[in-house]
């Protein structure tokens, strides 16, 4: 005990940063296991009993761990760890001890000014890993578990495995850590789970490294796969955290952010580190989420190949304005008349006739211009009734371009009557042309010269046969 405590005190000033620290922690834990504490036998019952007791039981456990420490330090010295593994490794337990308010490490704890619950977790983790590794067993499942680790399956794996676990509070301490790691920044919001969490991905990318090494070291007690699976995933999670900066960022951010995951609510606080870290971690997490949303919006908004945030926001704003305007225009257009008319289909015939009657009464000669005026008047009030009026007269509305197309198509027909040209006067400013065609034909007022043009032509209605033809054309046109 003595040498370790001295070393720990010596370490006080040497750590530099939470990320490196957590990296060191994780690496230490894993490498210890990897290198093996072959001879070390820690009785399972003791630690498990301590787990059962919860936080209070950690003391016994840590004592056992500390007793096993000196054997591992020699191996730790071999590690090519830039963060000074022995010190870091000692730090884990020092942290755990301090978290346990053990008298051994008050100075280190005070010097760090740290908060230790996460170290409880990591120390617990390390301890349990060592236990299981020590108690022996094969590790065939490690690889399988690693393979299946993706975002959802990790969570699913964790939850049932934890459900199966007999251990209560100790596990929940571990549970909160891997769960938060798995969810990364997507803490409480269920709707966001479907999206690919970059934090989680970073985590899993980081998992590849230590997992390969760790899986050989993991053993599975006869107690069942539940415990080792938990430990594996938890350790893998911490290993991933150790490996990937972003993963650790998300871990600590989530550790700091999402405290309420386990049923016995562990107060999750930031990892040990300097002031810059939580800031950068939280900011990085926030940026990742925002970038995610930006990507989703980019798919949605047309013509959004901009990579710049400001221009992307610009496009989004324009698109929203456009859609709102479109809705406004649609509500202004014939939908109103249509909506009013649709439930009143039965009345249409009577309205059509009445419209035709009023139109006929008003006509003073040139039926078409009068009709046009009447239609214009009606259109201002109600598009639906305007349409009905026209159809009552045997006319329909269509865009001028379309009408010109039809007139050119029918410009040289065998029947002179079916030639039609387009009306201009009233239609010009309406942007539509009135094409004769419909059930009721006003008396033909003579054929007009068939001169196709864009707008400046007057239309004359056709005779019966031609009217039938024109009616078909008009019908198809209006239906098109």
């Amino acid at each position, binding site marked *: 005990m003595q040498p370790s405590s001295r070393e720990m005190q010596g370490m006080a000033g040497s750590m530099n940063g939470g990320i490196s620290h957590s990296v060191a922690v994780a690496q230490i834990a894993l490498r210890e296991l990897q290198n093996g504490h072959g001879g070390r036998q820690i009785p399972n019952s003791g630690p498990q009993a301590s787990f059962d007791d919860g936080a209070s039981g950690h003391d016994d456990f840590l004592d056992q761990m500390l007793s096993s420490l000196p054997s591992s330090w020699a191996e730790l010295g071999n590690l090519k760890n830039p963060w000074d593994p022995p010190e870091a490794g000692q730090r884990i337990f020092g942290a755990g001890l301090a978290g346990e308010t053990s008298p051994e490490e008050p100075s280190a704890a005070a010097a760090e000014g740290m908060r230790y619950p996460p170290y409880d977790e990591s120390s617990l983790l390390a301890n349990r890993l060592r236990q299981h590794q020590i108690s022996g067993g094969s590790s065939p499942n490690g690889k399988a578990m690693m393979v299946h680790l993706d975002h959802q399956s990790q969570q699913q794996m964790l939850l049932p495995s934890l459900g199966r676990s007999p251990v209560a509070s100790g596990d929940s301490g571990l549970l909160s850590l891997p769960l938060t790691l798995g969810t990364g920044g997507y803490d409480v919001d269920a709707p966001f789970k479907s999206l690919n969490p970059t934090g989680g991905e970073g985590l899993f990318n980081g998992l590849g490294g230590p997992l390969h090494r760790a899986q050989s070291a993991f053993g599975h007690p006869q107690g069942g796969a539940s415990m080792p699976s938990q430990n594996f995933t938890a350790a893998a999670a911490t290993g991933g955290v150790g490996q990937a900066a972003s993963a650790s960022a998300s871990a600590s951010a989530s550790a700091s952010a999402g405290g309420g995951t386990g049923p016995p609510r562990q107060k999750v606080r930031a990892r040990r580190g300097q002031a810059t870290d939580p800031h950068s971690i939280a900011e990085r997490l926030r940026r990742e989420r925002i970038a995610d949303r930006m990507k989703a919006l980019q798919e949605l908004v047309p013509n959004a190949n901009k990579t710049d945030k400001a221009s992307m926001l610009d496009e989004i704003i324009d698109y929203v304005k456009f859609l709102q305007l479109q*809705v406004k225009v649609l509500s202004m257009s014939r939908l109103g008349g249509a909506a009013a008319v649709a439930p009143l289909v039965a009345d249409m015939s009577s309205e059509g006739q009445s419209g035709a009657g009023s139109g006929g009464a008003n006509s003073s000669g040139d039926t078409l211009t009068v009709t046009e005026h009447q239609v214009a008047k009606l259109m201002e009030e109600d598009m639906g009734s305007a349409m009905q009026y026209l159809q009552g007269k045997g006319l329909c509305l269509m865009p001028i371009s379309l009408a010109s197309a039809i007139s050119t198509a029918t410009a040289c027909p065998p029947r002179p009557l079916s030639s039609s040209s387009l009306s201009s006067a009233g239609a010009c400013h309406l942007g539509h042309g009135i094409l004769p065609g419909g059930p009721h034909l006003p008396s033909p007022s003579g054929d007009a010269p068939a001169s196709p043009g864009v707008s400046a032509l007057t239309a004359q209605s056709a005779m019966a046969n031609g009217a039938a033809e024109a009616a078909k054309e008009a019908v198809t046109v209006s239906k098109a």
Partner: protein
Amino acid sequence: MQATKSFERAFLRQLLRVFRLSAVSYKSMSLQERKSAIKLSADVAMASARGSRKWTRGLIAKLSEEDEHRSFLRLILGTEYERLTKPCHGSWKIPRSKKIVRRSLRVCSRRKNNLRAPHGVKSSVLARTLVEKRTHALKRLVPGGESLDGYSLLDEALDYVISLRAQADLMQKLLTTFEASKLSALSKCTLPERKASFVGK
């Protein structure tokens, strides 16, 4: 990302219901009145079909500002109205530990001060103000967006865009359907031979 089928169906159902309810009054309105009435109905239908989201609440709150709309809303929404208008848990923000936020703010300000001295370059400031300006504009556009932070604003904007697009598409389809049905109805009751010509086509 597409609007879900259930949303579209619910939206259509609500819209038709609203039209049926208020069709009688449409005849007596002017164009402007009818436009605002239909827009109101469409918005209400969209909000009620979408359910409970930040922007739906904001939209309904905005629509309820006028008393006359409020009775209309209550009629349409029924029991949902009370549920949607009561203030929801506004704290859907990312849960953050206060200590960390305070510390990060301190560090952030310190960092800014350190950086500003050597560089004196305003490009980042410019970029930030541009983004801020646009964020404010987006906040004004998205209903209920004033009180949202960056991430939730984007989230609500995404949802709102999807719903708006569905709304516009649905209204357009409705329009064409109505027109087609009107034409066919007219033809049915006026010219039987016309119908035959239809069939012939």
